[in-house]
């Protein structure tokens, strides 16, 4: 069996993996980038719309353009890449088993691993939609791949369940292709994707968005023929008598993404039930020493710019870790999710934070306006930040100055409305 030895192996050639590869290389270590698809870029080659890159390049790029900037750097640096290569297993000793057509089974022995496998879409089964099981039910991402990569139209008349970003973007894309998008159905009282996408992809095209509705039945034996939509109450229970039928030949599902961590599990990486990604410390390191994670494998990001900057940081840390420039202390305090906090990353922080500040990524559970995000230790406020809008669809990023973290106790994060004074 062919064996490769390298400093850092990066699994996944999406924006997270690409950015990590570049920055690790720039920090002076050998990198091997492994990607299962036939090209680099991860999910981006199929995201042919614009809106990428505002955070990093201060321009609006399409997905492929954004990816290309990173791919060019990888090429320029001649970073070794393996395409069409599926990683099947990561062992706790960090050996990686992968396969491809040309080399057969491959063993990679790195000093450190960066997990950058991205995420997968939630399916009909995950949310248990009743009804028949005909052809014509696709996740929005699969439909995006069919249309934008394979050049195939999955149907003519669509209903989209879920107002996730991919679903809304596909609503516009399909309309542009001449298909009819009858409605986007969302169980929550607000869209689960970005406001910008609701405006630009639904409102501008007159596509109805039905909030607090869900699909209670799919009909059709061979191909989808219609879906039955119902209003829901606050417990998401369908309200009898509110049913409406929409005739359609295709149902797209945009009902959420799940970090893809099957491999992480084989390596013994501990996952956070809230994010469904690895539990990490402020070095992006998982519980397994030398295994790092960044991008959508860690938590589902709404903006690719965040993904890439996470990758850049992780690449630098992993390189400095194997060069022993930074030593990662084993003692951590925990981050606890308080009022209206859905999740927070990292889940653990270290007293010896390595930059001047530590970046926290978090999402609220419910939308609220004019709030403080409070960081508390032992009921004492150590830091607060005002947010005009806090929405579940938009990740909050807060940089906490290093001196504020030098404490010995767990940190509680909570969202407190401005008028209602924090208990402190």
């Amino acid at each position, binding site marked *: *069996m062919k064996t490769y030895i390298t400093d850092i192996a990066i699994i996944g050639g999406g924006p997270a993996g690409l950015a990590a590869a570049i920055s690790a290389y720039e920090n002076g270590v050998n990198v091997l980038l492994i990607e*299962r698809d036939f090209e680099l870029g991860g999910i981006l080659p199929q995201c042919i719309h614009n809106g990428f890159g505002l955070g990093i390049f201060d321009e609006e790029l399409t997905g492929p353009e954004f990816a290309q900037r990173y791919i060019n750097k990888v090429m320029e640096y001649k970073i070794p890449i393996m395409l*069409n290569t*599926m990683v*099947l297993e990561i062992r706790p000793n960090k050996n990686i*088993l992968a*396969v*491809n*057509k*040309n*080399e*057969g*089974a491959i*063993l990679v022995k790195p000093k450190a691993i960066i997990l950058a496998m991205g995420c*997968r*879409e939630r*399916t*009909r*089964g*995950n949310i*248990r*939609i*009743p*009804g*028949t*099981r*005909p*052809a*014509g039910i*696709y*996740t929005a*991402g*699969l439909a995006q*791949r*069919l*249309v934008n*990569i*394979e*050049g*195939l*139209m*999955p*149907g*003519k008349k669509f209903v989209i369940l879920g107002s996730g970003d991919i679903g809304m973007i596909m609503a516009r894309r399909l309309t542009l*292709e*001449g*298909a009819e998008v009858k409605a986007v159905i969302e169980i929550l009282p607000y869209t689960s994707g970005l406001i910008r996408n609701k405006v630009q992809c639904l409102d501008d095209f007159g596509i109805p968005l039905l909030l607090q509705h869900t699909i*209670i*039945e*799919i*009909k059709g*034996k*061979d*191909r989808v023929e219609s879906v039955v939509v119902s209003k829901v109450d606050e417990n998401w229970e*369908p309200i009898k008598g509110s049913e409406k039928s929409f005739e359609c*030949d295709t149902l797209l599902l945009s009902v959420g993404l799940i970090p893809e961590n*099957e491999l992480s*599990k084989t390596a013994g990486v501990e996952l956070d039930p809230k994010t469904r990604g690895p539990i990490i410390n402020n070095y992006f390191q998982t519980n397994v020493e030398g295994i790092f994670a960044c991008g959508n494998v860690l938590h589902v990001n709404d903006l690719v710019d965040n993904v890439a900057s996470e990758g850049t940081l992780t690449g630098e840390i992993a390189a400095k870790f194997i060069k022993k420039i930074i030593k990662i202390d084993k003692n951590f305090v925990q981050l606890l999710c308080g009022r209206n906090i859905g999740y927070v990353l990292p889940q653990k922080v270290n007293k010896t934070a390595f930059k001047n500040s530590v970046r926290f990524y978090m999402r609220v559970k419910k939308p609220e306006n004019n709030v403080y995000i409070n960081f508390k230790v032992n009921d004492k406020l150590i830091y607060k930040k005002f947010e005009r809008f806090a929405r579940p669809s938009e990740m909050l990023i807060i940089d906490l100055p290093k001196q504020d973290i030098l404490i010995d106790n767990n940190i509680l994060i909570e969202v407190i409305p401005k008028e209602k004074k924090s208990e402190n």
Partner: protein
Amino acid sequence: MEYDIAIIGAGISGAAIARELSKYSVKTILIEKNPSVSMGTTKANSGIIHGGYAAKNGTNKARFNVASLPLFEKVCNDLNVSYSKIGSFVVALEKDQIEKLYELKENGLKNGIKDFKIIEDPKKILKMEPNLNPNVCGVLYCPGAAIISPYELCINFVENAIINGLRFLPDSEVIEIKKEDKFKIIIRSGIEIKSNIVINAAGLYADKISSLVGLDYFKITPRKGEYVLFDKNVMKINHILFPVPTKISKGIVVSPTVSNNFFVGPNAKNIDDKEDISCTLDGLKEVIEGGKKLIPNLPLRDAITVFAGLRAVSNNNDFIIEQTEIDGFINVAGIQSPGLSSCLGIAVYVVDILKNIGINLRLKTDFIPTLDKPPHFAYLSPKDKDELIKKDENYGRVICRCETITEAEIRAAINSPLPARTLDDIKFRTRAGMGRCQGGFCTSRIISILCDELGKNPTEITKHGKGSELVIGTTKHLRRDTK
């Protein structure tokens, strides 16, 4: 087309009979209305080989279930079918249910089953099944109960029978049968088949087929059962778990599958429409509530799919397996649960019926009992994986990321004795698309492989036959159409 024997229906009953008959020198045809085998009740059931204690003593169900049990291991070995004797629990959650366990045991003893016992020590039970409801007070433990892949068994029966001379005719709905000197079977497409013997194994439609020759003595009612299937590696379930049965049903089961998933279900509801395999809001609720009684911490967000199947219940509530008033017309009808567990015994018995009515059945000398299948790449050691890819590079491309199914396995399914032609065929043959992402990753890739092997366009590729096309055309064509 002339045959000695025509079997109508390629579910587990028809397939088992076809395979049994392929041991003999007779000319047999298996006629199926769907594009593939196993697309009726056989694709959607619990996949349990019942231990033989539950079916009421004296019924055909008990007789054929018990007769089949000793035969499964060899058949599954020969035909490369996943089968695992994990044992079953009937779970008493209240003290007064223990009595029921003894009644079941009594019935089992009458049926001739010996290998089971009642355990009344909750500690011991919970050690064997740690996620079970901690209120358990006793179980009837039957180590002989097993799990199997019902469609794999069905597919492999037919593949093996084809190798041994069976003619399989898919896409062929029988709409008329005339009794002349021979039977004349008329297919919707217009094809006529002549045969000396007709074996009616048409599942839910066995009453209809029987009435085609004027035999109206039974009626089949569909009884729906719904399921929720869970991902691998999220919760360990060691045994098949039944609640204590009520008068009306065996109750909602929690059971592992041979591919390491587990399911809860089925409920039981009599319906009118024999095509209605939809899941309902209320039905799925009932299934989940039922499952929670046995496994309180059901990991609901790791559900990966829901499905439903229809039991073919005859009006006498038992299997009808007999030579009828019409010479050479044999009914294999009302094969509800435990039909899967009984298929081997039923097949042997049908051969006996044929011998009894004077059909000359000579064992072939060149019968091939085994079926070679491409290796399951996912389960090989790294070294074996490496060697396999060196032999056929298509093993080096993983198409289904969840189940680790390679391009080589998909191509092999398309080129097997029973060629896969649809997306569902690929799924039931290889498991590609059956995992947690339910085809999100592999669908577009499988469409291109099917196109490549079959010389078709993507618009001609279907999920499960005509009418279930997956894509409608290329991009831009809707724009052109509207111009």
